[in-house]
């Protein structure tokens, strides 16, 4: 009996003997949770490309800061937040839709970053590695930043949940009811920007983009009320990030990629087997 238990538990415990794995697991779990919470808004409002766009914009900020000799992380964070605000502002003007705004800002800002990089002839620093972290490279300072992010995001969403939901669902009516819609839209984007930056910096760009979208998208196939989607997204994120990291340990593959692939697999399973909308469980094609 003891041997069976050991057989089951040892594979779980062995990676935990390494401090870098302890930090990595904590980081991806927390990041997954926060991204799932904010990501529910992202997916339901069709902002899926925002995470990717903000990541690219943050890179430009880092490159600029590097060129000017300033703090690279601060440059990345500032540009990320400013881009989030710019996207909201452009999208609010009735002339272009939000995803058009995202596309425009993203391409322009990133091109600027590439231009700046091409002028940098002194490569004593690996700028990409500087801005885009790595699950395996999570340090104690990253954990602190993640902890702060968790507190900020959860407080923001919990305290203002009904206002955020109302604003996301029907901004006109929300405004008519006295909800400060414009302020909340900007705040949500700023929080999204900060979440993206902290995630980027601690676990890298591959995860930052995927964890904002895939868990919430998976949840939306399984449950159908906004707060349920958020809870299921959190659960999916927790399970997939931890599983992915464990798999990368035992299969000797890149960790960030492994996590994203496991999460995507979860989505595909939900797509196939979802009770109402699954590809394999639907009675006939076209059934609701």
């Amino acid at each position, binding site marked *: 009996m003891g041997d069976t238990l050991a057989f089951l538990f040892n594979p779980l415990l062995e*990676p935990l003997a*390494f*401090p*870098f*794995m302890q*930090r*990595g697991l904590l980081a991806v779990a927390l990041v997954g949770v926060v991204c799932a919470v904010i990501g529910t808004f992202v997916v339901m409002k069709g902002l899926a490309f925002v995470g990717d766009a903000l990541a690219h914009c943050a890179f430009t900020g880092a490159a600029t800061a590097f060129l000017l000799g300033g703090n690279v992380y601060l440059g990345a964070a500032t540009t990320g937040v400013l881009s989030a605000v710019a996207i909201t502002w452009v999208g609010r003007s009735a002339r272009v839709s939000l995803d058009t705004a995202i596309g425009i800002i993203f391409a322009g800002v990133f091109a600027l970053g590439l231009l700046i990089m*091409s002028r940098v*002839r*002194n*490569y*004593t*620093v*690996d700028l990409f*590695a*500087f801005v885009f*972290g*790595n*699950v*395996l*490279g*999570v*340090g104690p300072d990253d954990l602190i930043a993640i902890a702060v992010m968790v507190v900020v995001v959860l407080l923001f969403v919990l305290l203002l949940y009904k206002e955020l939901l109302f604003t996301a669902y029907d901004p006109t009516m929300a405004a008519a009811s006295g909800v400060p819609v414009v302020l909340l839209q900007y705040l949500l984007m700023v929080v999204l920007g900060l979440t993206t930056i902290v995630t980027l910096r601690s676990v890298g760009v591959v995860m930052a983009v995927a964890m904002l979208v895939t868990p919430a998208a998976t949840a939306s196939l399984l449950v159908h009320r906004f707060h349920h989607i958020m809870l299921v997204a959190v659960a999916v994120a927790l399970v997939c990030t931890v599983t992915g*990291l464990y798999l*990368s*340990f*035992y*299969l*000797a*593959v*890149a*960790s*960030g990629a492994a996590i994203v692939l496991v999460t995507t697999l979860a989505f595909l399973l939900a797509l196939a087997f979802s009770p109402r909308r699954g590809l394999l469980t639907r009675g006939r094609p076209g059934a609701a």
Partner: protein
Amino acid sequence: MRYLGTLSRAASLVALLATLAACVAPGAPAARSGKVQAVTTLPLFADFIRNVGGDRVDVTAIVPAGAGPEDYQPTPQDAIAISRADVIFYNGLGLEPAVEPMLKNQARKDAVQVTFATGMPVIKDDDSPGGNPHMWMDMRRAMVYVGRVRDTLAQVDPSGADIYKANAAAYLDKLDALDGQIEAQIKTIPEAGRKLVTYHDAFPYFAQRYGLQVVGVVLRNPGSEPSAADMADLARALKANSVQTVYVEPQFDPRLMTLMARDAGAQVRPLYSDALDEKAPTYMDMMRFNARQLVEGLGGQR
């Protein structure tokens, strides 16, 4: 009459095309500027060439100071430099993957191309089955590189052959002396401490020559990320070998290595392999610097 008109028109067209072709064609041989135009990849190879060639040679290194060659992406300026070169020196064995195709397409037909690393026994490992390219880290092999520079320059510019021979001989003497010093210095490190952990796998030849053992590496394949299993292997190696100091080359982000070192209670120090910078501007400076860092970090005597 008409035939003559067509002929003269054709002739002027040909002349025009020829002029245009001359304008865009690669540069003319050394006779024009007087100096041998040499192009190489790494600044430290440029250092070799300057020491042998002196004033007779104009050297350009494509990879900028402080950058690693495995990830370097060439620019249009690099293409122009290659097209104007009389002689091109590069390492080979997969060190400069982005540059090698350019050499095929941009270099002049009569330019001499020299691969430094050919003809010498290689150390193979899982990640470079053709052989690890960082041969110059063993000073004896670097001396072979210098010899190749001398012989090639003499071939391309025979009137300078004596000068090249003299310069090379002087330089090789210095390298020989430094080689002996480094060997002696490393020997002061106690046997148990001669365990080398570096960021990327650039030191097998160095280790082989000077009596060290490479026990851990973070980046197996430049361009890919280390996996969790790689990191676990490294952590185990650090513990098993009671490693005091780990080394990171300056062209890499030291974050991963710093965290691993902290977990294992080890120090982090710099070590040079491919890139030169203000702290170590020449090959000899680089090797001296490395030796000192190793001696201080692994418990040897100065």
